[in-house]
C-alpha cells in the first residue's frame, strides 16, 4: 500500500487508482482506466514481486484484475541483498526524546549540518574589534551620557509631575513641559529648581569614554518677573542659585533649553544651556517647567527641514524670495525662522480685521486652513488705502515668491523652487465698465497642488504648483453715517494631483536572432 503512488487521499478512494486499498468493487466499476498499471518496489532488486492491475471493461460491471508476478532484473549489478535497512527508501527523521536531544541538537544545529562549525566562529572573532569602535559613537536615539548618569530632560510621566529619569536621546529634538512642586520654605533645598542641577555633570564626548568631557556652558539667562515679563541678563557667567529675598524665592529655574553641537562622527563637541529663571511667592505650590533640546551639526547653519525629501504632513511649507537685481536666479533667500515663511491670516477672538494686525499663522503642509475676520466699513473709508490695508492683511508683510517643492530643497537649487502664481478674480459676474467703483480684495485662496513622487512603496510629497487667488468685490459707496460689515477670508487648500500608479510590466522577452555578418560570405 505504501508503494501505490496514486493513493493520495487518506481513507478515500482515488479516481482511476487501481492499487488504492480504500476503493471497493463498486468504485472499481466506475473507473475508466488504471493510472498506475504496475506497482513494484525498487526495480534494481534482482527479483521482486510486482502487482499488475488492469481493468476489464468488457465485463458488466467493469472489474479490476489483480495479478502478482515475479519480476526479475537481468542486470549483473542488480541488488541481491542489502544489510542496510534504509538503503532504498527515505528514512523518517528521528523523533527527539530526552535522551537523544543533545546529540541531535549538536548534529543539526548549524545551517548546513557541516562538521566544521568552527568556521563560523572565526568570522565573528574578526568582526568584534571593529564592532568595539562602533560603540564609541553616539547614534540616533542613544541616551547622552554624562559623568554620573545621563543628560536629564525632565518630562511628565503618567501624570504631569516631572520625572527626572528621562534621558535626552542623541539627535532627538525634544520639548517637554511638566509640573514640579515647590514651596518658598524649601527654596534652597529642591535640587531640580536650581541651575546647578542642570549644568553640574559634564557630557561625555564619546560613548563610554571618560577621557573627553564637554562642560555645559550657560549661554543666556532670562529672568521672568512675577507678572510674566522677561528680562535678558547681560552677564551669563554668574550662576544664579535659588535664594529667599523679600519673602520670595528667586532664581527658580522655569525653563532650560539645551543646544548640543555634534560632529558627523557622532561626537559631542559643545553643549550650551539657556535658562529662564523666575520667582515664586508664598502661595505658589507648584511651577511649570519647560525643557527643550536641539542638535546642530558643527559648521552647518541649521535650516529646519520640512521633510526629507518629501514634505511631511504638519511641517511648515518652506518659501522664499529671489534676490533682486540678479539676471539669473542664483539662490532663493528664505527666512530660517521656522514659522516666518508662507503664512496666512490668523483668526482672532474678537474677529475684527483692523485690530488684529499682524497675527499670522504658518501654512503647514497637508492641513487645509480657513481663517477670516470681519471688516467694518464706514462711509469715511477711502478706496485706495482700504485696498492696501486689506492686501497687507491677507498677504502679510512679506508674501513669498517661491515655494520649495521638496521639504529639503536647498537655497542654491533654484529649479527646486516653484513660483507662486497670482490670480485675481472678481466676485461680480458682470463687470460694468462704466462703474468706476472700487474693487477691494476680500478673500485670498492659496491652492497648493502636490503629487506623490518616487517609489510606490515610499511615496514622497512634492509641491508642483502654488496659486494665490485674490477675489475682489465692488465697494459700493455708502451713505454717510451707515456702516457695513463684510467678511474677509483666507484659505489654504492642498490638492493631491498624483496620477494613479500604473503597474509596470516587464517587456515580453524577444528572440533575438541575427545571422552573422559574414553569413553570405562569397556574395557579400
Amino acid at each position, binding site marked *: 500500500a505504501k508503494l501505490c503512488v496514486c493513493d493520495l487521499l487518506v481513507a478515500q478512494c482515488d479516481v482511476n487508482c487501481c492499487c488504492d486499498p480504500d476503493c471497493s468493487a463498486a468504485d472499481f466499476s466506475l473507473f475508466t482506466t488504471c493510472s498506475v498499471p504496475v506497482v513494484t518496489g525498487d526495480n534494481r532488486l534482482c527479483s521482486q514481486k510486482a502487482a499488475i492491475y488492469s481493468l476489464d471493461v468488457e465485463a458488466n460491471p467493469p472489474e479490476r484484475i489483480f495479478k502478482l508476478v515475479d519480476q526479475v532484473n537481468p542486470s549483473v*549489478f542488480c541488488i541481491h541483498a*542489502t544489510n542496510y535497512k534504509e538503503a532504498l527508501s527515505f528514512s523518517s527523521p528521528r523523533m527527539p526524546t530526552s535522551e537523544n536531544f543533545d546529540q541531535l541538537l549538536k548534529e543539526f544545529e548549524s545551517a548546513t549540518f557541516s562538521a566544521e562549525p568552527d568556521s563560523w566562529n572565526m568570522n565573528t572573532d574578526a568582526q568584534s574589534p571593529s564592532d568595539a569602535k562602533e560603540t564609541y559613537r553616539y547614534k540616533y536615539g542613544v541616551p547622552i551620557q554624562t559623568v554620573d548618569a545621563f543628560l536629564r530632560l525632565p518630562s511628565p510621566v503618567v501624570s504631569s509631575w516631572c520625572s527626572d529619569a528621562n534621558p535626552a536621546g542623541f539627535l532627538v529634538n525634544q520639548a517637554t513641559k511638566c509640573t514640579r512642586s515647590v514651596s518658598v520654605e524649601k527654596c534652597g533645598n529642591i535640587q531640580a529648581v536650581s541651575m546647578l542641577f542642570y549644568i553640574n555633570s559634564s557630557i561625555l564626548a564619546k560613548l563610554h569614554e571618560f577621557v573627553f568631557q564637554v562642560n555645559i556652558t550657560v549661554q543666556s539667562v532670562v529672568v521672568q518677573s512675577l507678572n510674566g515679563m522677561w528680562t535678558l541678563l547681560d552677564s551669563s557667567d554668574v550662576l544664579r542659585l535659588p535664594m529667599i529675598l523679600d519673602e520670595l524665592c528667586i532664581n527658580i529655574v522655569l525653563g532650560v533649553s539645551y543646544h548640543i553641537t555634534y560632529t558627523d562622527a557622532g561626537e559631542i563637541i559643545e553643549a550650551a544651556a539657556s535658562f529662564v529663571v523666575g520667582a515664586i511667592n508664598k502661595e505658589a505650590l507648584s511651577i511649570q517647567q519647560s525643557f527643550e533640546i536641539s542638535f546642530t551639526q558643527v559648521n552647518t547653519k541649521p535650516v529646519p527641514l520640512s521633510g526629507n525629501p518629501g514634505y511631511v504632513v504638519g511641517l511648515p511649507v518652506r518659501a522664499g524670495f529671489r534676490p533682486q537685481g540678479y539676471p539669473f536666479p542664483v539662490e532663493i533667500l528664505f527666512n530660517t525662522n521656522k514659522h516666518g515663511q508662507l503664512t496666512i491670516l490668523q483668526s482672532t477672538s474678537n474677529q475684527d480685521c483692523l485690530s488684529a494686525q499682524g497675527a499670522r499663522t504658518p501654512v503647514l503642509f497637508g492641513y487645509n486652513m480657513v481663517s477670516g475676520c470681519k471688516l467694518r466699513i464706514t462711509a469715511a473709508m477711502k478706496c485706495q488705502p482700504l485696498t492696501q490695508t486689506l492686501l497687507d492683511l491677507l498677504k502679510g508683510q512679506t508674501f513669498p515668491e517661491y515655494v520649495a517643492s521638496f521639504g529639503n530643497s536647498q537655497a542654491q537649487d533654484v529649479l527646486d523652487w516653484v513660483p507662486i502664481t497670482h490670480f485675481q478674480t472678481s466676485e461680480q459676474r458682470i463687470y460694468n465698465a462704466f462703474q468706476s467703483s472700487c474693487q477691494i480684495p476680500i478673500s485670498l485662496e492659496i491652492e497648493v497642488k502636490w503629487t506623490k513622487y518616487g517609489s510606490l512603496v515610499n511615496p514622497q510629497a512634492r509641491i508642483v504648483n502654488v496659486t494665490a487667488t485674490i477675489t475682489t468685490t465692488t465697494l459700493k459707496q455708502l451713505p454717510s453715517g451707515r456702516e457695513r460689515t463684510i467678511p474677509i477670508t483666507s484659505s489654504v487648500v492642498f490638492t493631491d494631483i498624483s496620477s494613479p500608479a500604473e503597474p509596470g510590466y516587464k517587456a515580453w522577452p524577444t528572440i533575438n536572432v541575427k545571422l552573422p555578418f559574414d553569413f553570405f560570405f562569397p556574395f557579400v
Partner: protein
Amino acid sequence: SSYQLSSVPLQILFYINGIYYIFYFLATLAMIVYKSEVFSYPDDFLAPDLALLFIMAILEVLRLYLGSKGNLTEEEAPLGLSLVITVGSVILSVYFLVWQTYVLKADVILNALLLFTYGLESVLKVVAIAAFVS
C-alpha cells in the same frame, strides 16, 4: 613419483588463485565505488567494507606465499599456517557474500567462485600435508 612430494595440482591452483584474486580485488573495489555513487552508502557502512577488503588482500598474499613455499619446500609448517589463514579468508569471503552492505549479483558470483577455489585448495593442502608428514 615418490621422490617428489610437492603437489602439482596444488601449485597450479595457487597460481590460478593468485590471478583470480587480483581480478576479484579490483572488481570488488570498483563495485564498492559504484555502490557508493549510486546508492546511499553512509561512511559508517563504507569504512568497514573497505577495511575488510584490504585485510583480505593482505591475508591472501600471505596465504598464497606460505602455501606455495610450503608446497615447494615440502614442509608442513608453512602449509599448515596457510591452511589456518585460509579459514580467515573464508570467513571474509562469506562476509562479502552475505553480510556486505549491498550484495549485488556480481558479488555473489565472485565470492562463490572464490569460496569454491578455497574449498578445493583446502582439500589439496590437507592431502599434501598428509603426504609430507608421512
